């Protein structure tokens, strides 16, 4: 079942582009990565799904129900960790968490304390006295305490030290094992690569690729480097070759297509070294953005 289904979702702020004709699906139980640089439309998409803002056109469903019409019902089972966390400054952490919990049916005290202990969050301090990282921890506990079925993480690791990031990722994986679907938006590819099953890549408001992360790495692109005498770059003038560059006696490029074509071309040369490897997500990403 698709937990999230986005159909031709478009958002313009006056004339300024938010996102343009975005469509994708998120399956139940997966960790779905949403990558793109700042300003590409990641937050806009999340804010549309949470109905903090309203679409110019298109629609989206969560749990099979329309985001705008059934907002309150849907949000009962959603946890949201925004990229920048801001809370009522004069409240104490515990009061804020209780206030947050009061919007959801049931008693969440035990889970709240468990999460707070895990994230090493002091409950009696005032929000205004907290460092950026500690605020983020409040956000994490706040987003998880009502046991949501779907989690929106918007640049979740900014401000967390590496140790906490590690704990946080473990926590998210644990939640995911319990069946929680995660929508993970980030511009840090390493963490997406580590966490996600599938990714969508967004650029200037449009989705340019949605794929399984392994497929994206393994099947689509190869990073090829050939070292040979008298090598001219033009001999790799094939469809599917991109980012061709010369480095001394070597030629480097990305290739997408039938690998035999490239191997045949390489065979025609008198090569001294060849490497064909999977590009990192980083490189795929850079490739999309050139």
């Amino acid at each position: 079942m698709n937990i999230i289904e986005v159909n031709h979702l478009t958002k313009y702020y006056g004339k300024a582009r938010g996102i343009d004709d975005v469509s994708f699906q998120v399956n139940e139980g997966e960790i779905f990565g949403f990558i793109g640089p700042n300003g590409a439309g990641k937050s806009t998409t999340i804010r549309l799904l949470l109905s903090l803002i309203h679409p110019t056109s298109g629609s989206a469903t969560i749990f099979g129900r329309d985001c705008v019409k059934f907002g309150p019902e849907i949000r009962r089972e959603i946890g949201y960790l925004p990229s920048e966390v801001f809370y009522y400054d004069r409240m104490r952490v515990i009061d804020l968490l209780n206030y947050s919990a009061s919007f959801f049916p049931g008693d969440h005290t035990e889970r709240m304390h468990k999460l707070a202990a895990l994230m090493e969050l002091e409950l009696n301090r005032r929000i205004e006295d907290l460092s950026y990282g500690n605020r983020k921890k409040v956000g994490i506990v706040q987003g998880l305490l009502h046991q949501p079925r779907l989690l929106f993480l918007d640049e979740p690791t900014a401000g967390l030290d590496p140790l906490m990031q590690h704990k946080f990722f473990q926590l998210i994986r644990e939640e995911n094992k319990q069946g929680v679907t995660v929508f993970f938006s980030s511009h840090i590819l390493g963490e997406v690569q580590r966490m996600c099953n599938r990714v969508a890549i967004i650029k200037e408001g449009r989705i340019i690729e949605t794929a399984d992360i392994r497929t994206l790495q393994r099947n689509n692109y190869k990073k090829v480097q050939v070292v040979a005498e008298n090598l001219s770059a033009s001999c790799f003038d094939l469809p599917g070759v991109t980012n061709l560059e010369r480095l001394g006696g070597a030629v480097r490029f990305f290739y997408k297509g039938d690998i035999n074509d490239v191997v045949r071309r390489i065979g025609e040369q008198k090569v001294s070294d060849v490497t064909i490897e999977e590009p990192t997500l980083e490189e795929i990403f850079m490739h999309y953005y050139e």
Partner: protein
Amino acid sequence: MAMNIFRHEFRTNLRSVFIWSASIAVLIIVFESLFLSFAQQAELLNKAMANFPPQLLTAFGLNGVDLSTVLGFFGYTFLFVQICLAIQAANYGFSLVSVEEREWTADFLLTKPIKRTRILTSKLLAALCGLAITNLVVWAASFGSISLFKGDKSYDAAALFLLLASIALFQLFFFFVGLLISLMVKRIRSVMPYSMELAFGMYVLSVFGDMLGTSVLEKITPFKHFEPNYIIQNGRFDLPLVLICVLVTMISLVSSYMLYVKRDIPSVA
């Protein structure tokens, strides 16, 4: 209404309600404590005032006011109370929703499983409770200080009752107009300038209306809808004007709900 939001909002607001109420009460008491010394020299004062150009008197709202009577004096000083009440109510209206967007807490509240109309209703009621408290304090301070400082003079309690009864509608006007304006602009960086402008703007309109002798401006401003002098001298409201005030308030209320439900909440970056 959602009780948790109401409680949160009311608590957040309480300090401000207390400060405003106390300040206005002090203002009333200080003014009233001056009454007897004014009244004793009323003849001198009235004579001096008769020599002022009428435009000047109008500008200070003193035209046709007899400061030697209990309510004449109270009605005049009540103008300043009205200005304070207007600023307070406008303040609460302007900040009701905008404060969450200015301090970026709107994301927290609006991602909770609750309809925006319910959020707005709960916030509204909490703010209105605050205004009601101030209202009650003004009643108490008015009756208290008048009976304390009126000396052996008597006054028409019914007229005073009527004047104080106007406070609620007066507050509601500034509250809802403030709220509506706050929802029509993209972002309010600081509430105070807006509420000062609205309150003093309305006051100035009423003064200009007097000086120019036009009746158009007075249709807009609550300082005219509930002019203390008129209420005290006639012992009744100027009903058509009050209806205009109520109408504007209602329109602002309904439009505010419509705008809030459709509002795009700005994001941090």
